[in-house]
């Protein structure tokens, strides 16, 4: 475990005293210490464009009473700095009095190994793979005009010290490998992007030339897009492929089921608990406990063990995702969903791996049933306005469906829908559930955290496709 107090004039005992003194009249709070190391190696335009390394160290001190959160963070782990933060918290909460809730569940489970992926593979080995990627793609297709490939590796060590001296800690590895390829054929340019990642070492992802599969997939998507026609505009049926298209679930319902928006009644879902919000057969969970997944966590950033939280069961809304603050104010328990990008940020209820579970239809059945619509296989990003419930996501690989058959590929278009009603429009749930390849980052209130998604193929009766062809 990382010793945050080495090379500091602040002794652990002093820190514990300051923490207890600051928090004993508050409802909740903690000192969160974080040490992260990360690297980025980028090949672009036939060259190693960037090799950089970053180390970040700091603390975030939080005190909460009633609904009020006081937060202070600094890079200097020192007696003065912690005292200064303590004074800042006390001055915000001076007129308030709470009762500290000492109870926090414990776990012995771990969902990833205690490793530092950066140190497990030398720089030269990583550069060698990136060069192989570049050569492989450029020799495979003469239309390849640009290749960008990168490795990102990270190890984050955290420690949480609560009032009374209770401590919780976690060490989190994370890697990502990404390939982007641009084709130029007769003056028309299109790109394809694919990546993989998770809480593992590079080797366990890249053994047996796995990187070739990533390259092939990026190239395949770019090649499909070279042949794409303008997308249609208007309302129609949409078949979503399995896996990564589940960012639809993430945007359409995931954000709206986060505890803070529902406590504040600003989510379109806030008064729908126990009600039918999706078609029969639709079950959605948010699961932090899948081994080595990008969105998995042993404990969340408040120290609560993560879990598999059922959000929607057979169409009925069952649970919101909660951190400690929103759980206390809504008189329920934390679901281990309290997360922050790093020590500079306050904790918010966030998603982990959000998944729609299998039904019993086949993708073939779905496509056959559509007279006019689109089949969307891969997406860029998405966004939601949780108050109006409207959400969008951008197709990066899609095809038209005509009379039950897959037709031409269509250009990237935005799809827009209404979160609270879209799941009622799901008329078939597939039996081919897939996890995404481990590339998602979710943004909320300026904080990005790694997440995962999963789903089987689904058929949606009606969505608006934002193409240019009327």
């Amino acid at each position, binding site marked *: 475990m990382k010793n945050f107090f080495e090379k500091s004039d602040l002794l652990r005992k002093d820190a514990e005293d300051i923490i207890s003194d600051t928090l004993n009249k508050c409802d909740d709070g903690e000192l969160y210490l974080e040490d992260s190391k990360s690297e980025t190696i980028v090949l672009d335009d036939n060259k190693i464009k960037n090799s950089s390394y970053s180390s970040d160290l700091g603390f975030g001190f939080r005190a909460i009473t009633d609904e009020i959160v006081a937060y202070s963070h600094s890079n200097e782990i020192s007696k003065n700095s912690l005292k200064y933060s303590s004074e800042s918290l006390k001055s915000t909460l001076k007129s308030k009095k709470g009762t500290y809730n000492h109870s926090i569940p414990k776990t012995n489970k771990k969902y990833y190994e205690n490793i530092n992926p950066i140190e497990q593979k030398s720089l030269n080995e990583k550069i060698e793979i990136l060069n192989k990627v570049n050569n492989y793609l450029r020799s495979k297709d003469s239309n390849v005009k640009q290749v960008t490939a990168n490795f990102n590796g990270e190890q984050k060590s955290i420690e949480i010290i609560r009032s009374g001296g209770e401590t919780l800690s976690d060490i989190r590895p994370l890697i990502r490998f990404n390939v982007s390829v641009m084709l130029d054929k007769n003056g028309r340019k299109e790109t394809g992007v694919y990546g993989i990642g998770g809480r593992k070492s590079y080797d366990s992802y890249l053994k047996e030339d796995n990187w070739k599969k990533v390259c092939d997939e990026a190239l395949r998507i770019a090649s499909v897009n070279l042949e794409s026609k303008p997308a249609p505009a208007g309302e129609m049926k949409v078949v979503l492929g399995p896996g990564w298209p589940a960012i639809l679930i993430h945007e359409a319902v995931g954000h709206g089921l986060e505890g803070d928006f529902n406590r504040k009644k600003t989510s379109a879902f806030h008064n729908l608990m126990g009600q039918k919000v999706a078609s029969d057969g639709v079950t959605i969970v948010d699961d932090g406990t899948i081994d080595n997944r990008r969105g998995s966590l042993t404990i969340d950033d408040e120290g609560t063990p993560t879990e598999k939280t059922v959000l929607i069961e057979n169409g009925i809304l069952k649970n919101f995702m909660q951190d400690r603050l929103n759980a206390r104010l809504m008189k329920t328990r934390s679901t281990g969903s309290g997360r922050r990008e790093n020590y500079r940020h306050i904790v918010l209820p966030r998603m982990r791996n959000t998944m729609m579970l299998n039904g019993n239809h086949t993708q073939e059945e779905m496509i056959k049933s559509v007279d006019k619509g689109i089949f969307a296989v891969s997406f860029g990003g998405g966004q939601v*306005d949780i108050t109006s419930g409207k959400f969008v996501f951008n197709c990066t690989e899609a095809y038209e469906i005509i009379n039950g058959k897959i037709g031409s590929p269509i250009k990237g278009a935005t799809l827009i829908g209404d979160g609270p009603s879209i799941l009622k429009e799901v008329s078939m749930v597939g039996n081919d559930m897939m996890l995404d390849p481990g590339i998602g980052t979710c943004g909320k209130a300026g904080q990005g955290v790694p997440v995962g998604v999963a789903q089987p193929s689904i058929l949606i009766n009606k969505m608006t496709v934002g193409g240019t062809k009327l």
Partner: protein
Amino acid sequence: MMIKDKEYLSEKASYCLDLAKKLGATDSSVLVSNSISETVNFRNQKLDESNRSDNLAIGITTYIGKKKSSISSSNLIKENLDILIEKCIETTKNTPEDEFNSLPDKDLLAQEVKDLDLYDDTHLKNEDKIEYLKRLEISASSNKKIVNTESSFTEDKSNFILANSDGFCEGHEDSSFVASSVTVAKDEKSMERDYEYSSRCHLKDIKDAEVLGKLAAEQTIKKLSPKKISSEKIALIFDKRIAKGVLGAFASAIHSSVISRGTSFLKDKINQKIFSDEIDIFDKPDILRGLGSRTFDSEGVKTDTLKLVEKGVLKHYLVDSYNGKKLNLKSNGRCGGTSNLYFNKGKISFKDLLSLNSRCLYITETIGHGSNIVTGDYSVGATGFLIENGDFKYPINEITIAGNFKDMFKNITLANDLEFEYSTNSPTMMIEGMVVAGK
């Protein structure tokens, strides 16, 4: 607020440059910065959160000949810097050469730092921020349809030093004050959210609390009970806060990094007409108190005003040292992008712009990341209002708008209502010929 002074930052910078040289770097550059910010958040007229942040950061790039690597850290303790610089040199040695790697040309470096009045040393105590937010939220909540208000006031003070082994060592203090309000309104049929904010270098330039609250509330209430319209080709009018995004997409498509890689739809368009005759675009770094103002870019290269587009013709790319060398162009001080970017104002009033077509859509918000800089394709979700004969008829949502920037740029008409509210600014903008997808 006690940000680190020039002496402290310069000393750290020269320590790093010296050590890098001692360990074998032929060149190096370093950026040391400190920022302290204090934020107070209100919700439904009560204190919700206070947040104090103290950020130290250092970034070092070392060169050995044409090899280059970089490190960054928030831990400025000497022992840590020693370890990191050593690691950086090791990595540099093991990174392949790139012929275009180098510090910027010496003769392009800024010789002096202009005083652009970017620092206001006023410190607003949290009690005073609370006072401002109280007034703001009373104003924002005065209509019964407003069911939730979340407002925030942030004060930020920062200081930095950028230094390199060619003797460049400059920096300056910056301040920023930001007040914002997000309101939620509700009626029987719908719940909607909108916002307003004010961001300035100087405290006294910040919008009045009551005005800001009132604007946020009015804009939100107007959106209630929206309708969805049918798919059609229709003229779109972009509110200023959306129009600046079109200008932002233009800026990302003319950056030398995408031009040199060949991944922009504006590649090879220099000296060609990409907008209509009436369009001029400026990037002006020396506006007093400007939100994007600066004397030099993130490499230390002097930044002068550029007329990027003149009478519709593209005149400059945004060039940094690395990509400039690749393209055989001199850096024009745009490493890190534009400064104060704006369209020159048009000839027609806002009111007349609304009446140019008997029917059009006024767009106030877009969602999604639907700008493709490689192809120029654009498709995003949108919210706005239907306008008939110059009058706002009713709110619209759950639609998408789509087109291609190459066509969109040629069909822009600008109003004469340019103001400098952000670092990128546009007057209200009309674009004809785009496709709306709805029912």
